[in-house]
């Protein structure tokens, strides 16, 4: 009997350890009175963590390591929604799974913060462009200005839900916005030394329009038919012809998605290739957005400097 009990204990322990390993997300109960705000994507974790500081807990509902482009809701992630006071969403196509998760959770009427409510959205790029601009580019978080607009909206809405901390949220949001603006100013100062601010650009993933518009740049061509899907040989040949015709100077690829077809394009066209971060990898961290965006801005400045005549 005692052996059976021990076996059960070992089994329960092993299951618990396996579950903890599979869900590397902080699930510590917040102290009494401290709100718990859910997020779906890495940049939104950074935004909300910087807005709330120690006044509330930020809970990612998707464990780190999942690609948000291909995420399928899991029961344990849906269960996590039941302990939230509100959830902050991208809401324009990058976390559309969240609505179904909330509906299936213990809190189907959970307050939702639409971060992009005040962002001037751009139409989807590449083959995702359809319905006369009604399908929008969901990557508004890959931009300093649009992140500042989202941070202001999130701080305002969380302040409404948590009035005792509203003033702190507003002050934190403004301080965070100032730091983000400084990132862009630092990048532009480097660019001023480089002396050229025009570039004909192609991107592998149609995610970077918001960022490029901050520098007055427009994407001439998007290569990838959909995120993570490689183009067919015919599409690749057409892309290479298009890039030659448009006299594209720079291709922006994506970190963490090495691919043979990107190398083919580089080899065939001789165009310089640089990689941006999509900010969807690694552990959730308050400073992740600043670190990754600083790197993206440095990459953009380097590309513009190297393309200068």
């Amino acid at each position, binding site marked *: 009997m005692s052996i059976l009990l021990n076996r059960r204990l070992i089994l329960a322990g092993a299951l618990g350890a396996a579950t903890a390993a599979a869900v590397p997300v902080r699930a510590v109960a917040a102290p009494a009175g401290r709100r718990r705000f859910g997020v779906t994507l890495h940049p939104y974790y950074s935004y909300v963590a910087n807005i709330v500081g120690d006044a509330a807990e930020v809970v990612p509902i998707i464990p780190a390591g999942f690609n948000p482009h291909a995420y399928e809701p899991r029961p344990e992630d849906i269960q996590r929604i039941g302990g939230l006071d509100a959830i902050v969403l991208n809401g324009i196509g990058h976390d559309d799974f969240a609505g179904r998760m909330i509906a299936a959770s213990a809190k189907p009427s959970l307050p939702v913060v639409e971060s992009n409510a005040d962002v001037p959205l751009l139409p989807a790029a590449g083959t995702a462009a359809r319905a006369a601009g009604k399908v929008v580019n969901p990557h508004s978080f890959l931009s300093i200005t649009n992140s500042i607009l989202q941070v202001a909206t999130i701080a305002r809405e969380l302040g409404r839900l948590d009035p005792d901390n509203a003033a702190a949220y507003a002050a934190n949001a403004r301080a965070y916005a100032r730091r983000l603006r400084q990132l862009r100013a630092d990048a532009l100062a480097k660019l001023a030394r480089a002396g050229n601010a025009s570039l004909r650009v192609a991107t592998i993933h149609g995610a970077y329009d918001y960022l*490029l518009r901050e520098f007055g740049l427009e994407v001439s061509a998007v290569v990838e038919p959909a995120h993570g899907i490689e183009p067919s040989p015919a599409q690749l040949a057409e892309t290479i012809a298009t890039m030659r015709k448009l006299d594209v100077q720079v291709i922006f690829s994506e970190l963490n998605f090495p691919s043979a077809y990107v190398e083919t394009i580089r080899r065939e066209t001789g165009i310089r290739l640089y990689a941006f971060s999509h900010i969807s990898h690694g552990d959730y961290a308050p400073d992740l957005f600043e670190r990754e965006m600083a790197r993206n801005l440095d990459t953009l400045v380097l590309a513009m400097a190297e393309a200068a005549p």
Partner: protein
Amino acid sequence: MHHQIVRRAGAERETLWVLLAAGVILASAALAVGLRAAPDADAPLAAHLIDSRTGLTAAEQGLYADLKAAGEEIAALRRAGGRAPTPEELAAEALPPFAADPSAAARGGHSWTLAGTGDGVAYAGVSAAPELAGSLVLRLDGHGADIWLKRAAEAPPAPPEDAALTAAGWKRIVSTFTAGVTR
């Protein structure tokens, strides 16, 4: 003598039933598609409005987003300082699009001035390259910000009120929120 008529081998009747069933399925599908069709295109915007998603150049889209973000910061500076900051002060804070950086040059090289509107303030940016981005006006009152555009190297009328701006050919930029299509 017993006669029995034996029908020749064939599946005419079954074929008829299958065709009938296929017809019913097609008809109900056509009916469902007809009833659930997406609405026609939205009503066109009024003549004095322009859509940020479809009506602006890439440079104007970037400037419009920057001005929206700047509106929040200027409102906070006004509350703290009791007066509207000048464009030079905003440039010193590295606040786009007032900061004179390579981005400003690439997006039309606007020169910014401060003007009063009666119950609020306005920042007028005259473009040096209207083919890249038109001239812009950011108006702020106690309730929020609105942004106007004219594709000319032209200052707005003073004061930049709705009627005067519209009469001079300026258009107010509007943006709409569109949720994800698979939500």
